[in-house]
């Protein structure tokens, strides 16, 4: 929504900052909804629900910053919007092996990668590798952003 599809080449600093801003916006929204209603009670189901919301916000910020040109970002946003429970985000299509094409020498590893990358089950090998490289880049940036936030809370 906020990201323009025309932006494909992002240098690492600006993509990091855009991700930080996008994620912080969602994060403070979650925060403002929290403090009004609840008091802190550790290990409660509330805390679990909260961490799931943060996780969803993390993946959704990542996908929005990457932009709609990225197949993994589209697939990830679709998944997040259609499955609010989020529990199934990582394990896509465990049993659906019927359409997996038998090709490639390192078939096994490619299949594993397909299952890990959002939308990976629908990509040809080249796209899969390209999207994976971008996904790793974005995911590691997201981890850096979250680490920076948690470090600053202390």
């Amino acid at each position, binding site marked *: 929504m906020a990201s323009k599809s025309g932006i494909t080449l992002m240098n690492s600093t600006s993509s990091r900052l855009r991700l930080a801003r996008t994620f912080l916006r969602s994060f403070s929204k979650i925060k403002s909804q929290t403090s009004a209603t609840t008091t802190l009670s550790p290990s409660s189901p509330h805390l679990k629900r909260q961490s799931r919301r943060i996780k969803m916000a993390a993946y959704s910020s990542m996908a929005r910053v990457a932009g709609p040109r990225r197949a993994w970002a589209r697939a990830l946003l679709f998944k997040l919007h259609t499955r609010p429970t989020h529990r199934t985000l990582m394990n896509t299509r465990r049993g659906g092996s019927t359409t997996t094409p038998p090709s490639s020498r390192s078939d096994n590893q*490619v299949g594993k990668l397909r299952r890990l990358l959002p939308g990976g089950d629908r990509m040809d090998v080249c796209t899969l590798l390209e999207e994976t490289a971008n996904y790793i880049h974005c995911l590691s940036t997201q981890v850096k952003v979250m680490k920076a*936030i948690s470090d600053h809370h202390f």
Partner: protein
Amino acid sequence: MSSRRSRSRQSSSSRITDDQINDLVSKLQQLLPEIRHTQSDKVSAAKVLQETCNYIRNLHREVDDLSERLSELLATSDTAQAAIIRSLLMQ
């Protein structure tokens, strides 16, 4: 839906050359801390893919852990947005 997609995938995969795959695999290798500094001709494509999967799984786990940590911190303190952005610029 999926049958239409798999057909288009097959037609495009026949045009993929080994060079293209090798290029992409070595690009991927650059992103993996475990084998980034190994010479690319000493690492098989399968190894790169395996490490890629491991790395993605690790990053997913890190997102899980950090979400948990942030949820615990939510109730206790303020997000100093300016300070965070500054620290990211310094890295």
